[in-house]
């Protein structure tokens, strides 16, 4: 809130203008330093808050169809001014001459998912998917073209289980807890201490790893199953499951991971599993913002049943499917709308400085422009 007190700066400057330059200003000019400062302060305050509270979550879905839009062109009207030179050598406007331009639209390829999200993909990617789905349908777009008639080809998922393609995407949301001094916030930790995991990148437009770390012999099969789970079950119930496997790390690594990820995103269930060098289960720590505490405890119990035995990720994912479907509910972050988010001290100082500069700049314009009570 102290950021708003920077509005006193233009007020003092306006008073100074009236005192020192009463004959150079007209009444409406007094609002200019005030209005410009108000804009600067608002941008600094709300812009900083938006950055501080911005967080990114993953959404699951599946690839429904992919499209190839051919290149095409179209005529677009345009007009150009026409001038003539008079006897004195001056340029005189005569009117507009009407022409048309040709706008060229390049070809592109899109992949779309069950949430209605589309992403650009490469030509090779489209071709691979068309072969995989065994589908390629020509669609005439009936464009009003100039010389190149571009239409599109669509390849739709054929509904077969073996060609089901999970589609991951990221979305931003407001997370006030991470930027506040709320009791629900977590301390900052050094990710290097336990070799903590970062959120994975989405590769090839929509593919990302769902199990992070070395999971042993069942990893590949479980990764496919978990990606399908996140696409189908978790997506329909607004959820996302991560499994993080820590090799030869103590239980504290799981707690540190929770601190590092600030308990994850609002739609996530994060299962941390510690294994030894033979992939025998040592410990499990589950965290999530969900209010369904029993799901977290039951999940941990399910993993702990494998304690001392080789990690069977497939068994865990198979168990998770029906449980998520039955009881998962993501946390409503509207519950956390109350914590105040204050801009950092350096931002407050910068705002005061910018307000001063803008106030002085606009005041100089007010003094030296042509508007005055006499003119």
């Amino acid at each position, binding site marked *: 809130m102290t950021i708003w007190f920077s509005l006193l700066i233009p007020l003092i400057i*306006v008073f100074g203008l009236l*005192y020192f330059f*009463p004959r150079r200003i007209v009444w409406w000019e007094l609002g200019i330093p005030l209005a410009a400062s108000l804009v600067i302060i608002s941008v600094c305050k709300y812009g900083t808050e938006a950055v501080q509270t911005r967080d990114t979550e993953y959404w699951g879905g599946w690839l429904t169809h992919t499209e190839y839009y051919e290149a095409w062109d179209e005529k677009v009207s345009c007009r150009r001014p026409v001038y003539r030179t008079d006897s004195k050598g001056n340029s005189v406007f005569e009117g507009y001459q009407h022409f048309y331009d040709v706008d060229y639209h390049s070809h592109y390829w899109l992949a779309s998912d069950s949430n209605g999200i589309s992403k650009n993909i490469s030509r090779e990617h489209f071709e691979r998917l068309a072969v995989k789905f065994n589908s390629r349908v020509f669609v005439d777009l009936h464009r009003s073209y100039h010389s190149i008639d571009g239409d599109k080809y669509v390849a739709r998922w054929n509904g077969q289980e073996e060609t089901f393609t999970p589609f991951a995407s990221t979305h931003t949301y407001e997370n006030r807890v991470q930027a506040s001094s709320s009791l*629900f916030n977590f301390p900052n930790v050094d990710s290097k201490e336990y070799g903590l995991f970062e959120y994975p990148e989405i590769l090839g437009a929509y593919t990302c790893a769902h199990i992070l770390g070395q999971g042993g012999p069942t990893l590949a099969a479980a990764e496919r199953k978990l990606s399908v789970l996140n696409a189908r079950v978790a997506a329909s119930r607004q959820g996302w499951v991560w499994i993080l496997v820590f090799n030869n790390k103590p239980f504290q690594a799981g707690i540190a991971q929770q601190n590092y990820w600030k308990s994850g995103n609002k739609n996530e269930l994060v299962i941390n599993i510690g294994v030894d060098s033979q992939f025998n289960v040592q410990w499990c720590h589950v965290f999530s913002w969900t*209010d369904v*505490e029993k799901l977290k405890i039951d999940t941990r119990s399910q993993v702990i049943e494998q304690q001392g035995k080789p990690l069977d990720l497939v068994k865990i994912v198979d168990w998770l499917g029906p449980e998520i479907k039955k009881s998962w509910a993501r946390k409503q972050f509207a519950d956390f709308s109350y914590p105040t988010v204050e801009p950092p001290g350096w931002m407050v100082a910068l705002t005061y400085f910018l307000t001063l500069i803008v106030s002085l700049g606009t005041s100089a314009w007010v003094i030296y422009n042509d508007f005055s009570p006499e003119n």
Partner: protein
Amino acid sequence: MDRKKAIYAGLALVLVVLIGGYFIMSISYSNTEIRLRNQIAAQQDANAVVYDKVWKVIAQKAQVTEKAKDSFKEMYVPLMEGRYARGGSFMKWIKEHNPQFDFSLFKDLMNSIEALRAEFANVQIRLRDLKREHDNLIGTFPGSWFLSDRKPIKVQLVTSGQTQKTFETGEENEINVFK
């Protein structure tokens, strides 16, 4: 504009902005404080409801588990007595088909206790967090100026006598979980 008029105009402008700003901020701070106060009161009531649920669910699940144990005992003891009374010729067969007690009820009860306790802890933390927000609002400038007549809100947190004693003495002596 002569200087005297300009000074008056400047003073008037400053006053208008300051009084307007004060008025708007007063309303804003007051509304925020009242919303927080109401939220704290609602959360305090909600905590009582959650606490009630915790005990009812645990008690009733425990009753079901106890009943299941008794039922199993009632069924198991006569069955075993009857089988052993017949003599040893069917011993191997009987061993392989002994009825097993299903411990999943105990596991479920244990998980429910932990989950419900965690849920109750969460709502208590939320209540305390709302109080923190309210304390900050009325205690830090400029809120302390606009809301000087508002008092901190008392919240009721539920802990155990053991916890209170530990925090009063600063000593945790009873660490034997099986005592």
